[in-house]
């Protein structure tokens, strides 16, 4: 259950719509099923009442939508931002990707959004999902009622939530949280401790399942290029479907490299990946390396901060040492 109720969000949205501060609201609405929540735009109170959804499946990060929304040149848009979304909000602002005046940001506290694929692993044909005091029960067609412990359904990004603190908002609904020190690098360390062959086998297994649907790129708030190198025939690396295992690796290595130092670890890429490839482990590896080699850095913590990849000191470590560093825990 989310700490803040749906009515609070809807009333606030209606209020801002009516007094003209905003002319449209970016919120969540019901997709195919209850748990299938997708972003939607609401322009009037009626639409809000009928369509607006707020619950345990509102995982979408709206920051990236603002790039296109604010370019539409209409009035201001109201957007609900969970704590981890606010970091992407700031990172996009640092890169001048949207006009801050065109946005009215409402900070919404969040205590973790559920990962439906974890329910689907053991329950077929889910009809509805409801929750009382920490227990989630899914009513299904074939397997009857299945109850789960809420924490077991949290995706990695929420169980290892890095910060409940809102770093950007015009107005905050509910209380602000704190930056948490989460075990988000444990998984990366586990991989690093494997031998090279094991790591190669692990990633070969994972990446070979990639169908290059580009969902991870299209949802990533750091991937907002006008034209991506992989779509641009002139770039020399242009490819649609990966015709060889090399191209799968190439796509994911280059994408991770392009967002290195800019990725706020919001976990959207893993959330939307239809093949459930743990893409966040790639980005986290870069974040872990950057923290270790060049000092703690959280992308999007404040607007205008200089990412480590576009910075240097005269006594950085040598690339050979960077790899040896892996030796200790390999």
């Amino acid at each position: 259950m989310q700490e803040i109720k749906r009515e609070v969000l809807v009333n606030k949205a209606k209020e801002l719509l009516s007094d003209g501060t905003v002319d449209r609201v970016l919120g969540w609405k019901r997709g195919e099923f209850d748990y299938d929540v997708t972003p939607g735009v609401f322009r009037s109170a009626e639409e809000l009442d009928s369509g607006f959804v707020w619950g345990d499946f509102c995982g979408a990060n709206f920051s990236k939508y603002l790039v296109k929304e604010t370019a539409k040149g209409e009035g201001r848009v109201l957007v609900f931002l969970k704590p981890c979304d606010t970091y992407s909000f700031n990172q996009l602002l640092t890169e001048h990707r949207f006009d801050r005046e065109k946005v009215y940001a409402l900070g919404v506290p969040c205590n973790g959004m559920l990962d439906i694929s974890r329910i689907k692993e053991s329950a077929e044909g889910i009809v509805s999902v409801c929750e009382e005091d920490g227990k989630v029960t899914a009513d299904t067609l074939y397997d009857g009622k299945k109850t789960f412990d809420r924490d077991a359904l949290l995706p990695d990004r929420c169980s290892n939530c890095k910060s409940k603190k809102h770093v950007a908002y015009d107005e905050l609904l509910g209380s602000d949280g704190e930056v948490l020190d989460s075990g988000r690098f444990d998984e990366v360390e586990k991989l690093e401790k494997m031998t090279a062959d094991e790591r190669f086998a692990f990633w070969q297994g994972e990446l070979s399942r990639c169908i290059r649907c580009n969902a991870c790129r299209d949802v990533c708030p750091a991937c907002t290029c006008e034209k991506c190198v992989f779509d641009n025939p002139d770039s020399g690396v242009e490819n649609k479907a990966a015709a060889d295992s090399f191209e799968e690796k190439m796509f994911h290595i280059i994408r991770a490299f392009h967002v290195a130092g800019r990725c706020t670890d919001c976990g959207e890429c893993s959330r939307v990946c239809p093949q459930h490839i743990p893409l966040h482990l790639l980005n986290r590896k870069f974040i872990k390396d950057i923290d270790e080699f060049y000092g703690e850095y959280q992308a999007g913590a404040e607007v205008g901060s200089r990412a480590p990849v576009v910075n240097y000191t005269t006594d950085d470590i040598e690339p050979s040492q960077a790899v040896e560093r892996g030796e200790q825990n390999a």
Partner: protein
Amino acid sequence: MQVNEYKPLIVAFCCNWCSYAGADLAGNNRLNYPADVKIIRVPCSCRVNPMFILRAFQRGADGVIICGCHPGDCHYTSGNYYTRRRMALLFSMLDYLGIERERTRVEWVSAAEGAKFAATMKDFAEKVASLGENKRLEDLRCKK
């Protein structure tokens, strides 16, 4: 010499001001190093894009080495500092994906270090040859 002695294919990106001049000096001094190393001249080591490195591996290279000026000597003041950070992260990621470490390398060679250039190339070629063919980053369609 064995009949089908495996010969590694090595691409070396050399920065125009220091390491390319170091390579020339190695030539002037007639210092021998394996012919498998082919040099591409770039204005500065910071011009080398990770895409070029992966492209070389895709096309069948077995080792890629990036040579630049010693930190502090860069003709463009800060070029090699950026190379150092980019390649530190890239090499760490490649290692994370299980690619052999000795296939990629960054080396600082000044225009006066012809001997060091030849020795580095010889050492790198031997290490790559000992690893054998690049199986983990190869594109089967580009196989010779």
